[in-house]
Structures are given as structure tokens and as C-alpha cells.
């Protein structure tokens, strides 16, 4: 084997290793800034929306016409957890098949749920023992949830964010 070939192979291998590292970093980069970039993720659809006009009337309580895209746990053991909202409902409780499983002594197995209706999210208590609170008020029936208003369940508190 000529010396040159071996030298090229040696350094080629090292460079390939680092290319691999940077490719992996490239693939996971999106995750690293997931929280910070969430605003940009919805920017494109918003532009599409502008072109089609605003045919749909917004429910009265939506602040400045912004829709909720994330639910963020702000207090309690799961603080910091973010759930990206889709079109399906979110169930909250101690039951293992809940969307958000909270291990909180004051939460019931099936405590509450968040349901989207025409782009507005409603919180609904599912007959919990200790109740669900929207800000200070106890939730009795399906109640629209404005952005940034805390929903309290036991020691856990969550908010909808744009």
C-alpha cells in the first residue's frame, strides 16, 4: 500500500467521524430549539390564513385572535412539560392512559379534559374529587380557556400558550 493512500484513509476516517457528529447534531438541532422556535413553526400557516381572509368568526374570549398551540405545565411535578395541541382532546388525571399523567395526591384518576371546539379550547371537569379551577373560579361546565390563564388541578397548574 502506498504511503499516500494510507495517509488519505487515516485522515479521511477522522473527517468522516466528525461529519457524522455534525450530521447527527444537524438532525437533532430542531429539537434543541423546539421551545424557542414554536412561534416560527406556526408562522407559515398564518400567512396562508391571511390570504384566505377571515371567514371564521372567532369565539369572543380568544385574545387578539391568537390560537393556542401549546399547553405548558407551569407548576407541579411536571413543570416545564409542553404538549403541542392538535385537534384531539387532552385528558388529565392520574390514570396511566391520560394524555398528561399527573401523580398528584389531589388529582383524580380522570380529573379534567381540554377539548377544542372551533379553535377554542374548553376545559371540562370530569367529576373530580377536588375540582378543577380556571384561575380562581371553579369549573362546573365546559368553560372556554383564554391564553395564559392558569388551570389548577391539585398542585399542578397549566396554561395555554400561542
Amino acid at each position, binding site marked *: 500500500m502506498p504511503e499516500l493512500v494510507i495517509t488519505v484513509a487515516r485522515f479521511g476516517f477522522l473527517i468522516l467521524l466528525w461529519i457524522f457528529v455534525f450530521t447527527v447534531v444537524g438532525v437533532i438541532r430542531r429539537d434543541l430549539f423546539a421551545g424557542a422556535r414554536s412561534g416560527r413553526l406556526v408562522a407559515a400557516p398564518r400567512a*396562508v390564513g391571511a390570504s384566505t381572509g377571515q371567514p371564521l368568526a372567532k369565539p369572543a374570549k380568544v385574545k387578539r385572535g*391568537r*390560537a393556542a398551540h401549546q399547553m405548558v405545565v407551569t407548576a407541579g411535578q411536571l413543570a416545564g412539560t409542553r404538549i403541542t395541541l392538535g385537534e384531539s382532546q387532552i385528558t388529565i388525571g392520574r390514570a396511566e392512559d391520560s*394524555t398528561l399523567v399527573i401523580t398528584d395526591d389531589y388529582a383524580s384518576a380522570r380529573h379534567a379534559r381540554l377539548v377544542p371546539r372551533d379553535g377554542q379550547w374548553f376545559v371540562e371537569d370530569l367529576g373530580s374529587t377536588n375540582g378543577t379551577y380556571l384561575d380562581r373560579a371553579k369549573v362546573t361546565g365546559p368553560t372556554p380557556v383564554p391564553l395564559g390563564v392558569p388551570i389548577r388541578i391539585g398542585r399542578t397548574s397549566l396554561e395555554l400558550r400561542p
Partner: protein
Amino acid sequence: MTAAAVPAASPATTGEQSGVRMARSRRNAELSLLLLALVIVAAYGATVEATVLDTVTPDFWVPTAVLAAVFLALHVVIRFLAPFADPALLPAVALLNGIGVGFLRRLDLAKAAPGERESLAIFAGNGGRQFAWTLASVFLAAVLLALMRDHRSISRYAYTLGLAGIVLVMIPAVLPARYSEIYGAKLWIRVGGFSIQPGEFAKLALLVFFAYYLVRKREVLSLASHRVLGIDFPRGRDLGPVLAVWVLSVLVLVFEKDLGTSLLYFGMFVVTLYIATERVSWLLIGLILFFGGAYLAYVLGGVIGGPFENFHLRAEIWLDPFADPYEDGYQLVQGLLALGSGGLFGAGPGGGQPLEIPEVQNDFIFAGIGEEIGLFGLSALLVVYLLIVERGLRAALAVRDSFGKLLAGGLAFTLGLQVFVIVGGISKLIPLTGQTTPFLSAGGSSLMANWLLIAVLLRVSDGARRPLAGAGGSTARPGGGPPEQLHGAPTEVIRP
């Protein structure tokens, strides 16, 4: 943002759009990363042959091709069984495992008689054995993925696994040294020419138990406390489990004479405790207990010897390896010289003298590889480990249940700690203890246990990244099973 003033046409559409973006399974990214990793492994094998044999044999690609087939099979299994799993884990692990197998084969080539080198069978020697273990481990990882469709299901076996873990840890300690001791550490079960290290599997079992136990107990551990010097300290009676695990790890240190394993168990527990309670005081208590225990063992080893003597000797070697470079310090000194002569870019794959280092295929594999790929390549490998750990922690952050968080966080940390303990040991940062380098070192138990660990991480990350489509009412179960737990659904009162 001016766009914010423009109202969204339909929040449902935007929700769906971002939902689709979040729901990308990233399997194709995994496939291309895996192919890149396999190209690197093949390039490594070719370079080794070019340097050691001075020619590239026409079948240099065979070991890589078999590995490629196995890893691609696992990729396909992931595609079906865990479609939203993290895309970076499998390629990173495949790269490390492939380079490990390649390096072990390189050692076999160097040991073989010059005439036989060209015709070394792929299942021969250490490299061949590691190769066979890789196939078995990947197969087991796939089986685990198939059996465990949801990471929460293993919490059902938490107590069984905890007991199994303790039994596995204890077996080598109670066995006679003839069946369990290799180089002064009693960590093995040796039957015939075959040895397994039950502690590697115990690690996983114990972690499942810790995670389950702490999810149950963390309320009490994190609420009741006294405040001293601005840090919340737990009540005395809540320290019980921590002290129990501390005693267990000291017993491991004393009876199995292995600091690394003991540090690993204890660190694992303290960190899960910290993740569960978010109390810095646990880390302080843990560090104080561990360093106190280790220092005490060192002093006792110097004074009375006995079970602490091995550790005392290792600490002495660490403090001054060059005091006795041909006897006690020989291994560490050879490792340091290898790393030093590797320099920045190394001697090239196949160009070093790894056989000068005793046990280069096990504990000192990082020194052996380091001599050949230099600091530049070695740091790339360390970054790959770092990325694996980061992906594990990311899965822990994103998963939506506490058990999963503790499990993934603990597993990822354990992997990182193990790399720290062994790489710190060979680079003389901490006293050397016999740990395997995950995925690189020769050793079936370690390889298999770490692949199972990766399978659990894949499963948790799949749970974490799976989109919420249909969650709640009809959870998107693989295979579209019946909606679960109808009996648990509450009666709804429909109001006008």
C-alpha cells in the same frame, strides 16, 4: 412579529399544520445517519487492513456488511414498532459498536501469525466473539421493543425486577472466588470458559425499581424537610432508602472489590432521586456519602488491608502511577503512554502498538483506540456518547409521565456516568476501576445490557414524540387495538 396581529384563518388548520410538523417520524433521517455510520465502520475496517496487512483483502467488507444487515434489520423493526423513536440513537450506537468490533478484529489481526492474517475468519478471536454478541444483542433489543409496547408496562414488574437486581448483584459476592474473581474484582459468574457479568443486567433492573419507587415516594421526600443554610434537607427518617442503597454499594465495594460498579449504582440512585425531587441537597448528601465512603475505604485499606486492599492499591496507583511503572502501575502507565504517543491525530487505524497495554480489549480499549485515532478522533467518539446521553435526557424531558421521565433520565445518566468512570480512569482523572466502555469493550454482558438500555430509551422516546392524534378517546395504539379501559371512562352529564 407583525404576523401575530393577523388572525389565523382557522386555528384548527394551524394546529394541524404544526401537528404534522411535530409528528414527523424522522425514520428516513435515521436511515441516512445509519448508512453514514456504516460507511465509517467500513472505512475503518479498510484502513486497518491497509495498515496492518499492507493490502486490502477483497472481503474486507464482509464484517461490515453483516453488521449493516443486522442494524438495518433493527431499523426496520423500529420503523414498525417504535415509529416515532429518536432518530439519532440507533446510528450513534451502531457507529460505536461497529468501531468496537473493528478494533477488536484489528487486535486479532495483530496477534495472528503473519501467514494467517489474510484468512482470519470473521467469527474468530475476540473480535469474532464480540461480533456474535452484537448479533445476539441487537436481536434481543428488537425482542424487547416488540414485547414492551409501552414503557409504562414495565412498571408492573418493578418489585420483581428490584429483587432480581439485588440477587444479580449478590451472586458474585457469595460465590467462591474461583467462580467469580477476575483480576481481583469479584464481578463475574464463571462457568467453564464462559463468564458473564450479572451486574450489568442488575443495573437496568435496579433502575426500573428506583424509578417506580421514587414516583411513589417523591411527595414525602420532597415536601417534608428542614432548611439549613438555604438548602432544604430531608427528614432523617426519609433518608432510609438512600442509606440502604449506600450500604449496598459499600458492600459491593467491600465484597466485590470494585469501586466503579459501586459508584455506578450509587450515582444512579442519587441522580434518580434528584430528578424525582429536584432537591440539590440530595446531590450534596450523595457526594458527601460517596467520597466519605471511598476515603474511608482508602484509609482502612492502608491500615488493615483485607477487603479494602485492592481499592487502596488502585488509589495509590492513581496518585502516582510512575512510582512502580513496571509492576503495579504498568497498565495505567502503558495506557497513558499510548494516549500520549497518539497525539493529536493518532498513528492511524492499525498503526499503533495496542498490544503493549494489558487488557486493551476490555478496560483500556479507549487508550488503544486513542493511540490510533488521536485526540481528534477520540473526542469525536466522546461527543457521540454525549449525543446519546443528550437524546436520552431529551426523551426524559419530553415524555409525559413521571415513571418514564425517571427511567429515561436515569438510564441516560447511567450510561454517561459509566463512560466517565472508565475514561476518567484510563486518563488518570479518577482512580481506575474496571468498567467496560459501553459498546466498545469486548464483553457480551456489557454489550447486551447496553443494547437493552438503548431499546428502553428508544421506547421511551417513541412515547415522548408520538403525536397526540386521537389521544384520550382512542389512543393511537400500534395495530389499532380496541379503545382501552371503557369501564374507566366517566359518565358525562350533557348540559343544554
